[in-house]
């Protein structure tokens, strides 16, 4: 039973591995960017799995209800910020990808490297 | 004089810099530029020489500029060694300016303005090195001297000069930043200060084996003293025009090197402390090795300027040897030799320059019988050569006499043997050339028949030759001035 408590962290580690592998191993730019979103998604999972408390609910305080255990709001705030940071980075990266496609005609990093090496 | 001594030091530093700016402004009118150079040289000499009387009376003028690092100030203090070097440098600058005007005009070299500007900055650096009160200020001006002489060495600008200027810069910058800087910082971290104090600042603060290491770092850190393994920059600098070689060898660069070595021995380590450290013998071994080997190499040289270069390496090691014998007589001998060598070597270089301007000849082998065509130049050359060998009527004899006396006091037979052997070797590579120049017929016809070199060059030549004689006659006041180093 105790090990199950660590399952979130295990999944966090596996997702990080997949994300990093996708970034490093794949030469296609868009595939690497998707890898990057997975990589960042894993971190969100880490933060949010710290806020869970047994028997707790979402931290919204109704008037009537007394001594209700609430989940920890702080990691949620941090992750709200991190999600928006993630999407902004992806949007910027995709804009750069479109420009790279127009400038180089391909979005395969190895082909681009060859084209640059000829210069 | 009218203004206080501290101001004198300040003016001594500022005059050459102002001169450099004035030369830069007067760049387009050669005559104005030359007169500005001369007037600056004369003013500097007057200002520097005005300090001599107060020095002889035992005064030590001081000047504090500002605090560069906490606990380390940019400060100046004039003491006998510094006075001698500054007087020498400023005096010979006048002569060198006169000579270089003739040389530049004779050879119509290009970008002469840059030449004079760098010359003035180099002199300012030399005076700065002479008057500095602590090792940090000395290091600053030492580096300024290196950088300001680079454009002079790379004057011609063609591929060969640039490559040898690269060697010049590489070795000098490399040794100074590679060895001198860490040695300086190590001394600071041990002694807590870098000020030159009579009797040294390292007394009892450093264990035996490290003293040797620190000593070697200093000796080889000061690249300008041209000890054997790091001497290659001197012959490489021969590509420069002759007035620059004269500056390099006689007036500023090498003098700054040996001056720093002596100052470090006397004021950083302290004579007594260093004397009873067995590891100071290392320096004597290196100096003797350099003297002997450089004289042998000089024997095989055919190019006149390279021959003089290797003879300079030898003579410098005389001073280092004298300084490292650590006896009162030899310390005085070291400073005397600095002076004597300056006069002798500058005459030789002027002569070499004159021969080149007049007959475009550089190799000794085709200079037979040149004495007939250029009697005054060759006469001066002979006097210079005699001074190098140490024959009595010239100044060289005096300084060698003092160094020998010091060596005997310390009954250091190795030093004695080296001195005698090198004197013979000097004679071996100077005298045959002089005889050939005067006695033999001219076998290699010059490009066009020529007489003497232009008059300003000849005038400078003879003046420095006379100086060697004058030094022989009136060396006593200088000796007393230098003796003040030894008193605690």
């Amino acid at each position: 039973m105790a090990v199950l408590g660590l399952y979130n962290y295990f999944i966090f580690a596996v997702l990080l591995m997949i994300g990093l592998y996708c970034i490093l191993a794949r030469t296609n730019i868009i595939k690497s960017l998707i890898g990057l979103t997975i990589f960042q998604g894993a971190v969100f999972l880490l933060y949010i799995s710290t806020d869970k408390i047994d028997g707790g609910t979402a931290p919204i305080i109704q008037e009537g209800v007394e001594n209700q255990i609430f989940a920890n709001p702080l990691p949620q705030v941090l992750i709200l910020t991190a999600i928006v940071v993630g999407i902004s980075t992806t949007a910027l990266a995709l804009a750069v990808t479109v420009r790279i496609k127009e400038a180089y005609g391909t979005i395969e990093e190895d082909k681009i490297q060859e084209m640059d090496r000829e210069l | 004089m009218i203004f206080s001594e501290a101001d004198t030091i300040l003016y001594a530093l500022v005059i050459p810099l102002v001169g450099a700016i004035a030369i830069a402004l007067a760049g387009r009118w050669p005559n104005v530029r030359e007169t500005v150079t001369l007037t600056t040289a004369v003013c500097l000499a007057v200002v520097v020489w005005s300090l001599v009387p107060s020095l002889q009376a035992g005064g030590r003028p001081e000047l504090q500029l500002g605090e560069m690092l906490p606990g380390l100030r940019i400060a100046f203090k004039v003491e006998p060694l510094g006075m001698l070097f500054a007087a020498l440098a400023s005096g010979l600058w006048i002569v060198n300016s006169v000579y270089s005007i003739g040389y530049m005009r004779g050879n119509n070299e290009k970008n002469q303005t840059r030449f004079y500007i760098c010359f003035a900055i180099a002199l300012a650096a030399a005076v700065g090195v002479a008057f500095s009160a602590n090792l940090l200020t000395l290091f600053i001006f030492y580096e300024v001297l290196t950088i300001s002489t680079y454009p002079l060495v790379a004057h011609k600008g063609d591929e060969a000069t640039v490559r040898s200027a690269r060697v010049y810069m590489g070795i000098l910058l490399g040794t100074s930043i590679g060895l001198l800087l860490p040695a300086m910082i190590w001394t600071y971290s041990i002694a807590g200060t870098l000020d030159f104090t009579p009797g040294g600042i390292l007394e009892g603060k450093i264990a035996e084996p490290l003293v040797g290491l620190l000593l070697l770092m200093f000796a080889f850190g000061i690249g300008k003293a041209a000890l054997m393994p790091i001497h290659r920059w001197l012959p490489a600098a021969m590509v420069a025009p002759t007035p620059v070689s004269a500056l390099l060898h006689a007036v500023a660069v090498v003098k700054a090197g040996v001056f720093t070595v002596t100052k470090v021995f006397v004021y950083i380590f302290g004579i007594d402390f260093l004397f009873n450290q067995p590891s100071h013998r290392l320096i004597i071994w290196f100096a003797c090795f350099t003297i002997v080997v450089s004289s042998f190499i000089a024997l095989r040289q055919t190019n006149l300027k390279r021959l003089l270069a290797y003879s300079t390496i030898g003579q410098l090691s005389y001073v280092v040897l004298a300084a490292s014998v650590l006896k009162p007589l030899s310390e005085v001998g070291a400073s005397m030799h600095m002076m004597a060598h300056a006069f002798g070597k500058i005459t030789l270089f002027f002569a070499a320059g004159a021969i080149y301007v007049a007959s475009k000849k550089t190799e000794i082998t085709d200079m037979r019988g040149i004495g007939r065509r250029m009697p005054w130049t060759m006469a001066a050359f002979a006097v210079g050569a005699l001074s190098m060998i140490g024959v009595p009527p010239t100044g060289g004899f005096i300084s060698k006499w003092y160094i020998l006396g010091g060596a005997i006091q310390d009954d250091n037979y190795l030093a004695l043997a080296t001195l005698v052997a090198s004197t013979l070797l000097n004679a071996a590579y100077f005298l045959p050339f002089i005889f050939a120049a005067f006695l033999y017929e001219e076998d290699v016809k010059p490009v066009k028949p020529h007489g003497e070199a232009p008059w300003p060059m000849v005038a400078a030549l003879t003046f420095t030759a006379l100086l060697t004689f004058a030094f022989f006659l009136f060396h006593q006041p200088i000796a007393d001035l230098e003796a003040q180093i030894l008193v605690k």
Partner: protein
Amino acid sequence: MTLYDQLPALVVVVLLFTAPITYMLRLHGFPWFSAMAAVVTSFVVACSLAATTIGGETIIYEMGGWPAPYGIVLHIDALSALMAMLITGASSAALIFGAKSLADEVGEETAPAFFAAWLLCTAGLVGMVITGDAFNIFVFMEISSLSTYVLISAGPDRRALISTYRYIVMGTVGATFYLIGVGFLYMVTGTLNTADLAERVGQVEDIRLVLVAAGFVSVGLAIKAAVFPLHSWMPNAYTFAPNAVTVFIAAASTKVSLYVLMRVDYAIFQNSIANHDIQLTFFLVPLGVLALFAGSMLAIYEKNLKRLLAYSSVAQIGYIALGISMTSVAGLTGAIVHMFNHGLIKGGMFMAVACLALRYRTVNVANLAGAGKAMPWTMAAFVVGGLGLIGVPLTPGFISKWYLVLAALDEGWLGALLVAIILISSLLAVIYVWKAIEVAYFGEPRSNAVPVTEEAPLVMLIPTWIVVLAGIWIALDTSVTVGLASIAAKTLLGVEL
């Protein structure tokens, strides 16, 4: 609350306030002007902050009025004030200098977006430097990184795009590593405020998570700071970014990540993890030494002048890393002083290169031959900068080398080795600086190269020479920089002033 108490917030708020305005008003030339005005005001505020903190006291400013561990707190001491001054100074100098070269490289149409991004990059860097909250550092790190990506991608050459892409991937991975580190720290301490973290990290019983957190934070920041093995994004990013942008990011951006590394390592981990200084030494010394040699060797064989300077920046960052790894007051002072000095030297040199690029249209060392005669003032600035890299006295480089060697000497035999390495790499610096100088002064301009005759425009020369002279001034009178740096080192190490 007088204006004087609001200064800590104002240094960032001024920039954030002007950014949307710059983006919205599309009048000709207005974006540059409003950006420059905002950055200069922020520089003035940063200087006054430095004035207050030079006495050694630390300013605490609670954001939103909430007390320390609950709200976000700005924590400004001598080190952050010095860094804020460096960032805003470099930004204003680069902006004033870059007016002409930016107009040439960045079109009129994207100018509002570009200068708004410039403002936000400065705001992000300054925000990172003054904040006292670990997560807030991440947010402002993202602001500065994103705007740096925008600034670099505005470069004229198409390779600017691919180098921006690589910088985005590595920068985001680095920032996410930092985030993971902060997450682990939060899990074991429950707080995000740096001061609060420092106390509570000591009381954590199982040390394993804290060590891994320290590892993640250090690696993340090493990627952002382009420490040697993780620096591959930096040379291309500096080379293909617009010239004025290179001047700014070369002088400021990598140093801020080193600042955060220093603050995290010394403020949080120093007194909590047992033998933290040994771990730090084992982490930074090899990286620093590698950076020194690899950076210098790569610079020697580099043809493109901007990439040559970028590789030399990798080497200089190696110096700073060595300084940080020495965990002694002199070592830290050396590292902090070198951060400031290198910012000045490299800023000046990149300005000179920008002037050359404006006239010669290329920054390839080979065809800059004869620049010494054609553009004497620019080349003189470049030479003085080069001497600064070597560490010749009368240049800022000498002061930082002085402190680094002094600190290394008290480290015993390892220190002596470090001294040798530091000096050998400055000799390598002699080689690559002299290579450029020789070509410029003694090289013969190729026949087909278009002859360049006139000097760089005055509006670019004056800022260059102001930066160069400022460098020489702080080499002579080090009271400000070394004063602030030693106070900062003492506060970081907890030694009383």
